[in-house]
């Protein structure tokens, strides 16, 4: 081949080729250095000195009450772990451990199977070790190759507040959970993630940042010190969240609801903060901490009283008379409606060929709107509601937030139901329903379904004449803004008059809720909701004006009878407690 045939010179070819081979030679020499010359160093390092990376879980942020009292805390517990790949004989080692900690080797084995994630990943064998057990294990460390213990922070509840539905619980992340997490990179298997309630809603605040430590361990798996080459990072604890809950009031309400089924919500209408929230029956807040046995789970999940259900956001109830103020507002918005015009209540109302009864079968006689609210007359509303159509009423319900979620800051809220024409046609056929639906809706019966938290928002709006912010559990800067009713001050005043009259007038249905304390002005409405599944549900809703502050209250007692007789006296107890601790909403 002639040299002139080529585009590049021999010299260029030689240099390029040498350059490539020299680069590879340098690499080869480096591998020679590490693999042959320094082999012994690395062999020792690999066989007798391994660097183990240990994650230190960050303690989750605390959950505080409005004054900074700790509601949900962390508590260090000791767990016993094993690195499967380092254990010599699992069966006999599990037996030994069982002896030392006075447990059963089958329990240890089942925990091992549940937590196993890989041959060299620490696997949990037992939890809640006490110092005696740890001491026993430490003494016999030589027989327990590959067995370690570790400290992990766990949730505990120092002040005796239960509120499991509010706080929620955390769950240990396993494979299937991690797959479905939104920001899965922030979590490793075995980390804790908020799974319900505030723990879930405020996960990003509470979670903190995991720390990592590096240890040198020798052949028998003992830590021989920190790994000098690598820096450890400390775990950064999660942020605390301050809730609007008042510890004392919350405890008081939880005690009131002991052995009962239902809800108490106490709120501050001026800020929207919830002061106390109970859903009864409940369960111990540490129920989900650690392993849940199958029988425990079966007991709680099949309990007919449904303790797992968070009644105040997920329970949907027929409201009964407590929503008559909606009808009142809708009526007052009609131009030709005269609120002072009296209607006669004979105790029943005939509509077509159907008879609609008033709850007071003797009849209320002649009454105007405020009096009708005061004694909760049904017939008054049957008669006047004919001036409305379904759309008017439906819109007013919507303005007060019914039929949609309140955006309360705990997850899985139900939206309830306000029937409109479309819904009724779908359910009963095009002509299967009639204006009788309107009569039912006017007194809060029929298809209407509400959640207690919607009722709290509704009461807050009534008490502040439509200015109350959304109900919420945690102090945050930007509350979601829901739709708010815009009514004239005349209408608001009429509503206030009716609700005040229900407490103070001679026949007022809410009389029993009044603690009769100076300057403590109670406004309220009782409800006795007919219920296809048994005894009536008793409601009391209302608020109190006290020293420029407002306290709203929602009480629901399932299948307990009449609102005036059972729910109102309970409201009185809560009001008395508020007077006793006076003035916390302002804090």
């Amino acid at each position, binding site marked *: 081949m002639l040299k002139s045939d080529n585009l590049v010179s021999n010299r260029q070819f030689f240099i390029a080729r040498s350059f490539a081979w020299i680069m590879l030679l340098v*690499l080869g020499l480096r*591998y020679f250095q590490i693999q042959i010359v320094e082999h012994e160093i690395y062999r020792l390092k690999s066989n007798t000195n391994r660097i183990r990376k240990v994650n230190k879980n960050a303690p989750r942020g605390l959950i505080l009450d409005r004054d900074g009292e700790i509601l949900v805390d962390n508590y260090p517990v000791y767990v016993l772990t094993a690195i499967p790949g380092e254990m010599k004989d699992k069966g006999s080692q599990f037996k030994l451990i069982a002896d030392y900690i006075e447990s059963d080797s089958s329990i240890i084995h089942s925990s091992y199977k549940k937590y196993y994630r890989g041959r060299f990943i620490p696997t949990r064998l037992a939890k809640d070790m006490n110092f005696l057990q740890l001491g026993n294990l430490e003494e016999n460390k030589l027989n327990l190759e590959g067995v370690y213990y570790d400290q992990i922070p766990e949730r505990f509840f120092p002040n005796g507040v239960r509120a499991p539905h509010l706080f929620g619980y955390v769950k240990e992340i396993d494979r299937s959970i991690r797959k479905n997490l939104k920001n899965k990179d922030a979590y490793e298997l075995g980390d804790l993630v908020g799974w319900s309630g505030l723990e879930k809603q405020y996960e990003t605040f509470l979670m903190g940042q995991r720390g990592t430590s590096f240890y040198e361990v020798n052949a028998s798996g003992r830590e021989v010190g920190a790994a000098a080459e690598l820096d450890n990072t400390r775990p950064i604890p999660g942020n605390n969240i301050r809730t609007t809950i008042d510890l004392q009031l919350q405890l008081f309400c939880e005690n009131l609801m002991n052995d009962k089924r239902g809800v108490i919500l106490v709120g501050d209408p001026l800020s929207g903060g919830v002061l106390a929230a109970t859903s009864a029956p409940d369960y111990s807040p540490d129920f989900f901490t650690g392993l849940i046995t199958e029988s425990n789970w079966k007991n709680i999940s099949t309990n007919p009283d449904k303790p797992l259900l968070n009644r105040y956001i997920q329970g949907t109830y027929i409201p009964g008379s407590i929503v008559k103020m909606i009808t009142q507002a809708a009526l007052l918005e009609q131009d030709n409606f005269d609120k002072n015009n009296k209607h006669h209540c004979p105790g029943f109302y005939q509509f077509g060929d159907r008879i609609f009864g008033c709850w007071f079968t003797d009849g209320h006689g002649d009454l105007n709107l405020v009096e009708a609210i005061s004694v909760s007359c049904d017939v008054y509303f049957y008669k006047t509601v004919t001036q409305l159509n379904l759309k008017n009423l439906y819109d007013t319900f919507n303005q007060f937030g019914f039929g949609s979620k309140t955006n309360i800051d705990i997850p899985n809220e139900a939206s309830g139901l306000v029937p409109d024409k479309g819904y009724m046609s779908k359910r009963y056929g095009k002509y299967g329903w009639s204006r009788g639906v309107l009569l039912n809706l006017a007194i809060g019966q029929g298809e209407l379904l509400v959640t207690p938290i919607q009722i709290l928002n509704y009461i807050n709006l009534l008490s502040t004449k439509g200015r109350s912010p959304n109900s919420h559990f945690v102090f945050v800067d930007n509350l979601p803004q829901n739709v708010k009713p815009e009514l004239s001050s005349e209408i608001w005043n009429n509503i206030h008059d009716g609700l005040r009259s229900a407490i103070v007038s001679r026949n007022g249905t809410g009389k029993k809720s009044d603690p009769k304390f100076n300057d403590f002005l109670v406004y309220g409405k009782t409800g006795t909701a007919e219920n296809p599944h048994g005894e009536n549900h008793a409601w009391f809703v209302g608020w109190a004006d006290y020293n420029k502050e407002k306290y709203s209250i929602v009480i629901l007692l399932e299948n307990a009878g009449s609102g005036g007789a059972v729910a109102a006296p309970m409201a009185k107890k809560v009001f008395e407690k508020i007077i006793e601790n006076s003035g916390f909403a302002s804090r």
Partner: protein
Amino acid sequence: MINLKKLNISEAPWKIAFSASFLSFIGLVALSSISYQSPSIVQNPFYKQLFFLILAFSGFFITSLMPKYLIHKYAYVIYSLGIILVILPFFGVAHAGTYRWLNIGLPFNFQPSEFAKIFSVLALARYLSDNTINIQYFKSIIVPILIALIPALIVLNQPDLGTALVMVSVIFPMLYWSGARPFYLFLLVAPVFSILTAFNVIAFSIWALIIASVIFYANTKIIFGAGYFFGNIFFGLLSRPIWDTLNPYQQNRVLTFIYPEKDPLGAAYQIIQSKTAIGSGGLFGKGWGEGTQTHLKFLPVQESDFILSVIGEELGFIAIVVILITFGYLISSVIRNSFLSKDKFSSLSLIGLGSILLAHVFVNTAMTVGLIPVKGLPLPFISAGGTFLVTSYLMIGLIMRFSINYSD
């Protein structure tokens, strides 16, 4: 039209293709060792690699049969397409904070920057093979530098320093091959070194001496030489005060970008574990499937970037030497074919493709033993990794095509 008579298959350098397949076989051996505890077939690196190898071989046949004149004709079109491809990920979702991958609705993602590397080489080869330019002049190397720099800068922002460096690095051997004066190439790199050495007085002084002597030997005009020299000194002196104006967190970000080892949780830990794995392998290795370091899962990307740690630990220095010699044979064959090539476009394409392969081999192999900072570059033919494996075989296909001398 392909003239089959002139396309002589027996002339094709089959040894290059066989070398690549042999390396892939070693890769499969290593992957099967670390695959045994994978939960499902889809996640199993061994089967994944087999699947991509089938794709890669088909790509290889397609590119090796592609007519040379078509490649030459559409080199700039393909290059522009490559630029669009590397911009596309920015409109998608970030993966681990980077915009390297395109989600194309398949169970795996596609990394367009891998293809862009080849396209840059082809565009450069086309430009430099043009007879109208005179490479002896400094100004005629400006355009090729821009050709290499544009996609590299986009990729740098993804951010992917390793791939960007590979894209830029092909420019030097290709310019050298097309006859550019080595002195000009030196002028190009010098400012970078001036900035880097400025942080150490001794290094900076030595560097200044080197610049001075190179300028002296190059026999340039005194004004140009002096101007260039003091320009570099000025650059160097300026870099320190500019650096000091940065916030500590900005400095840190730059440092971990260049030296990921500074992040002890990530790369430093990986390097220590990688070196321990390789070093403890010794001459013959611990045996297939017996690598304790590897199986402790200390290395997060052992199937791709750190596959050599697995091989070094389990199969030993012998296997490393075999791999390095195979790569050496492959790359020096490419250089030889480039040297023997009758047309300039083929010759330049070959040297460019060979440079990409060599850059990958060097960066990956040096990184696993801590010679250079960790860069996420996989090892050609051996590492698991969809797009890159396919690209590597596309390159082999092109190398085969360009190595066959025939006249159109």
